[in-house]
């Protein structure tokens, strides 16, 4: 018996493990970037193989469309079970009305959502007329626990490019009374990391490789906000003591004007807790959006 036949199981297992390791370590530019500051560049093998996910994306869009039409299920069951003709017509009309009511309520809710989004984008345009927005819907979210990404239903064909900022309406009121600018009605969600023809992946600010330049405190110090995906929060590390003494829980964190991607002044979140040490402190920031309620976003295409 040859060695291969004798140890076939182990050899195949080792082969799969080696293949997985080669794929995961195959990012050629990994050593050139500081991952904690700017995030890792894309993996060219992954980008090439992603074309095979086109059926996946089509299925995702189908599932999204199906969930919008869930009211049709009642009508389907009425048609399956046959009844006497007049009763059947009556029940058919009744379930059609119920289905239409369900669809109408669904459309009303969608309209209310889009109307809020439109008013919100108008508010931001009043502040900065150069803003151009592309509305998008979240169609899929990150399947793993390690990263925080969402997939939106707009892509290259709609004018989306990599490194565009993505925002939404703030979902939490300020935890304490404060001067609230119009820009702070918007909250930073993340930035576009990869684009396909009709969809795009957005890296959220809670992703562990995310880094956002923010302003903290009344002295407007610059700090780098990083993500903590394990508890859906963000952190700012090593703030010097000259700054953190005047910070308190509930203070707003906004994008710094030196940020190259996000519009300055837009809200990021609120200080949740401050861990003070002798010389430095670590701040936990609660993003002003809720991940599970993220449905509609705006991509800033020009500013």
């Amino acid at each position, binding site marked *: 018996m040859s060695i291969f036949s004798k140890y076939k199981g182990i050899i195949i297992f080792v082969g799969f493990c080696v293949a997985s390791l080669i794929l*995961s370590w195959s990012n050629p530019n990994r050593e050139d970037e500081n*991952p904690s500051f700017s995030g890792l560049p894309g993996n060219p093998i992954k980008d090439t193989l992603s074309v095979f996910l086109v059926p996946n994306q089509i299925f995702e869009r189908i599932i999204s469309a199906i969930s919008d039409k869930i009211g049709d299920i009642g009508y389907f069951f009425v048609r399956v079970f046959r009844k006497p003709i007049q009763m059947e017509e009556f029940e058919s009309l009744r379930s059609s009305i119920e289905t239409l009511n369900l669809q109408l309520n669904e459309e009303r809710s969608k309209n209310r959502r889009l109307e809020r989004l439109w008013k919100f984008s108008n508010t931001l345009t009043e502040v900065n007329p150069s803003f151009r927005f592309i509305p998008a819907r979240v169609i899929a979210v990150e399947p793993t626990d390690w990263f925080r*990404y969402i997939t939106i239903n707009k892509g290259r064909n709609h004018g989306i490019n990599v490194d565009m900022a993505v925002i939404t309406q703030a979902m939490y009121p300020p935890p304490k009374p404060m001067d609230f600018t119009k820009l702070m009605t918007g909250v930073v969600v993340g930035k576009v990391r990869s684009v396909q023809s009709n969809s795009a992946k957005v890296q959220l600010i809670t992703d562990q490789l995310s880094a956002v330049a923010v302003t903290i405190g009344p002295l407007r110090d610059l700090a780098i906000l990083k993500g903590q995906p394990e508890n859906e929060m963000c952190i700012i590390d090593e703030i010097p003591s000259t700054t953190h003494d005047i910070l308190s829980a509930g203070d707003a964190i906004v994008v710094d004007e030196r940020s190259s991607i996000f519009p300055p002044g837009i809200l990021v979140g609120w200080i949740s807790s401050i861990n003070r040490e002798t010389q430095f402190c670590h701040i936990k920031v609660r993003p002003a959006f809720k991940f599970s309620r993220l449905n509609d976003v705006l991509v800033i295409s020009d500013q």
Partner: protein
Amino acid sequence: MTRILKIILLILGSVILQTTLIAKVSIFGSKPDLPLILTISIALLKGSFQGELVGFVSGLLCDLSSGGPFLGIQSLGKVVVGYLAGFIKGRFYSDSSIIQSLSAFVATIVDKLITLLNLGMLLGGFLHIRLPGLILTAIINSILVIIVFRIVRRFVKSET
């Protein structure tokens, strides 16, 4: 050939459900891992080779669906889980719900630890993981595997 197509459909279905419906459902911040549960089920039904193959493909598809920059992160953990779970077939009664649940519980922890280790080495630092979240995910997977196993067995029409 038909069985291969069915397994491919199961893998695609699990990844799509994971990225759409499952990702929006969480219990105290923990979510089930359908591709992992599928890998365990196939391994218990068909043995190590098919288990690690399903683990590799489903892990690869999860990585492709993920926004992270890495490929192969999820597949390594699932390959190991598929290989180890396949040892149960023929040695223990894999139709037992207790065996399935225990396998899923241990497999979830093994998968997460392997992924954490690999990701930590890639990023050059120690990553944090919530231990209560990990245990809760393992419990959720160990409950769901009982249902998924039965669906997979009926779908694939195993001769075990």
